[in-house]
């Protein structure tokens, strides 16, 4: 991993300046079943394609933002500062599916 990632505040920077918190997940709204809980905590889609991720510009402006990255090529299609989903996360639209490989 040595690609450049455009921080919404600072512009393109070395990926080593950032921390990645992985795929954007949706926290269950109310007390989840055991299955829902483990799938929220431990299961990821792990797509070969475009996925939506959380990144933090740790060694820069410390901004958390979301990015759409193609996991096969590390092309970053877009980055943006996410609107807060609120205290109880509503259903967000899932990240776009991987194009057929």
């Amino acid at each position, binding site marked *: 991993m040595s690609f450049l990632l455009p921080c919404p505040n600072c512009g393109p920077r070395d990926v080593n300046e950032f921390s990645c918190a992985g795929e954007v997940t949706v926290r269950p709204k109310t007390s989840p079943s055991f299955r829902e809980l483990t799938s929220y*905590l431990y299961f990821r889609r792990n797509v070969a394609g475009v996925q939506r991720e959380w990144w933090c510009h740790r060694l820069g402006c410390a901004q958390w933002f979301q990015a759409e990255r193609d996991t096969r090529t590390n092309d970053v299609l877009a980055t943006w500062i996410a609107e*807060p*989903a*609120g205290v109880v996360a509503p259903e967000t639209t899932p990240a776009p599916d991987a194009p057929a490989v």
Partner: protein
Amino acid sequence: MRLDPQRDERLDRSRRITFTFEGKPVEAFPGDTLGSALFAAGQRVFSRSFKYHRPRGLLCCRGQCPNCLMRVDGVPSVRVCTEPVREGARVEAQNVWGSLQRDLLAVTDKFGGPFTPVGFYYRTMIRPRRAWPLYERFLRSVAGLGPVDKHAERSTRFDTEHRHADVLVIGGGRSGVQAAERHAAAGRRVVVVDMDEPPSAEGFESIRGVALGIYEGNLVPVDAGNVLYRFRAEQVVVAAGALEQPLLFPGNDLVGVVLPEAPRRLVERWSLKPGERAVVVSGDTQALDVVRLLERAGTEVAEVVDLGETRVREIVARGRRGRVEAVSLDGREIACDLLVASGGRQPAYALLSQAGARVEYDPSRGIFLPVEIPEGVEVVGAAAGEGISSAIPAATYNGAAGKGKCFVCICEDVTDKDVKRAIAEGFDSIELAKRYTTVTMGPCQGKLCHLPSIRLYARENETDEASIGTTTARPPWQPVSLGLLAGRPHEPAQRTSIHHRHKELGARMMWTGTWRRPHSYGDPAGEAKNVHDALGVIDVSTLGKLLVTGPDAAAFLERLYPNRFGDMKAGRIRYAVLGTDAGRIMDDGTIARLDEEEYYVTTTSTGAGAVVEWFEWWNAVWGLDVEIANVTGALAAVNVAGPHARELTGRLTDLDLSNEAFTYLDAKEAHVAGVPSLILRIGFVGELGYEIHFPSPYGEHVWNTILEQGQDLGVRPFGLEPQRILRLEKMHILIGQDTDSESNALEASMPWIVKWDKDDFVGKWSLEQVQERGFREQLVGFEMQNGVVPPEGGQVVVDGRPGGRVTSSRWSDQLGKAIGMAWVPPQLAEDGVEIALKVNGSIERAHVRLRPFFDPEGEHLRS
């Protein structure tokens, strides 16, 4: 013996430099390389080969082949042909038993052949299995490269530097310089790297170094001796040129068989006569320029064969004592001591291939060309195939059976026979054969063996080079010292504002994360005792410190932590354990409510950064109205603890410190020693204590004042180690020491911290699951029965099996006992239960304790 000064000579003949080779002095001129000086001194054998210990001499003279690897000042595998001479250098041969001239292991060349075919180590020497370590040690000592001196003093410091350029040009030859000038003229910042002589020119910067690879995002590491530049360039121009390829024929590794560049450099740069009588055989018309050069140097050129025009079916070089003596061309023998043999030039595409270019075979010229150059990368000059018009010397890469060894790979001593055998054994893919025969895996990284091996493959498989294809090109393009790759990154060391006082007081410093902290001031047990008996002071500036402010501050903390903070009165403090949504403990600290909308949060010394990030992340989702400010560096903090703590603190502030006015777990703002401070009455170390937080610049002032004012009270500074003893007496956990990434608050015996009646908090659901499934282990304290201190990380033995582990253990003078904490199965987590610990192989007994060893009722803290 030098020739008259040549036009492009690089020597400074006015001065001399002396170094030693195998203990004997060798003279050289500034401008020489170690290799050229040795050649001038008459040395022809430069190394012994990897497997057969055959004599090898200068071949490429440009730092690409393995033939001149020597130990220089204890550093193994230095290419002496390009290593500049330096006064007093100690140069030694490597991979030799005996001497370069008489290597005892040369018997493997004569007799080892039938017993050591390709991949022999996969088939022989595997039984009995037990004996492999012996075999391995033997093989490692007789084969391979020089040994690493394990006791060597560190002579060099390596550094890493990040650089940026608009355009990075790899290769400073003619086309590289042209490209650099073109880009510089367009107003771009250009850097040229060249492994040999960086060009001097206006308008761009040039660096002597080796580009090791092209990584994702045009990241190019450049080996510049003691510095590794991590270049990030918008555009990379590859002007790496072309690589002269050897011909395959029996005896092609004899000393005196060279690529055209070797005589070129010997004559032009160092004014040396390459040989007495030469034969030139070349598949590359351009290489025929050496003929003129050789004549100029006084070497008799006995025969010139242009393989593009003349077909030669069989070339066999014959030697004596490893040095070429004659060459026979289709049976016609010509005496010579120098055989310039070139199989044409191959564009150096490896870097481009790493960058993502495809490599395609051009049958008309017999070379592989980089195509589909990725965006942001450009290729110019010979690397793109420009100016290369090689004929394919088809007849000459077949070898000649039974007339001596014909080497495909001189790095690893792989012969044509080995390759044929690998094919016969079924290794028909070039990638598999590479791994089996190790062709291209030696120090030259395929520069001299890749193309010949592909040609041989194509021929043996009765197909063409295009269908054989190439193997994957990977970094590093040139061998690189491990030290350089492990060079110092920019790792900050953090020091508190009281650091220099600690040093003056004789503190032994230690690392905690990136912080430097006093381990102790020389007497950990005495320092701990002084806290119990009189008064101690410790620098706790390293604690993470955050201000959480805003209308939603209370709600925010309640959502993040299992504990409750909304019902706290301003000026009160609560212990807090931060967890993840999986219920795991991340960090701990205290939270003081300063007023309705402001909280002061402390974290562990190493956790501040992660906690801030964690806070910000959750709020990026929640969008609560809070501000999170990391004030870790802005504030210093000291903890004054011991029976006299109130007396001392009273001397520094006007605040009413009576137990009624300022009770345990109160937080108050006041001036301490004239400095605006926040005083937290907490007790990590178990005695009456005040943690004073104040602006960092006053660190030394406050520290000095405490030591002065507390002199008659017996104040002494204490370090981290005594603090660890003291906190263990109180059974206060250390995150990361007593907990790990799997621990949760319930099993860590802090169920009181989890407020189940809260609607939701991070980790609630997972903790519910832990509650439901039952505990698997539990964190408890223990007291040893006989005073032995068990090792941290040691085993708790349950029914003769490992059933838990010791996380902390210390001898406590205060208690006169060895105490500790351990994870044990839940059925043993009861006060007084006997547990068995393994100490130095034997079993020692301990009693479980669930309440603090020292002052279990907290009377000292509340006094």
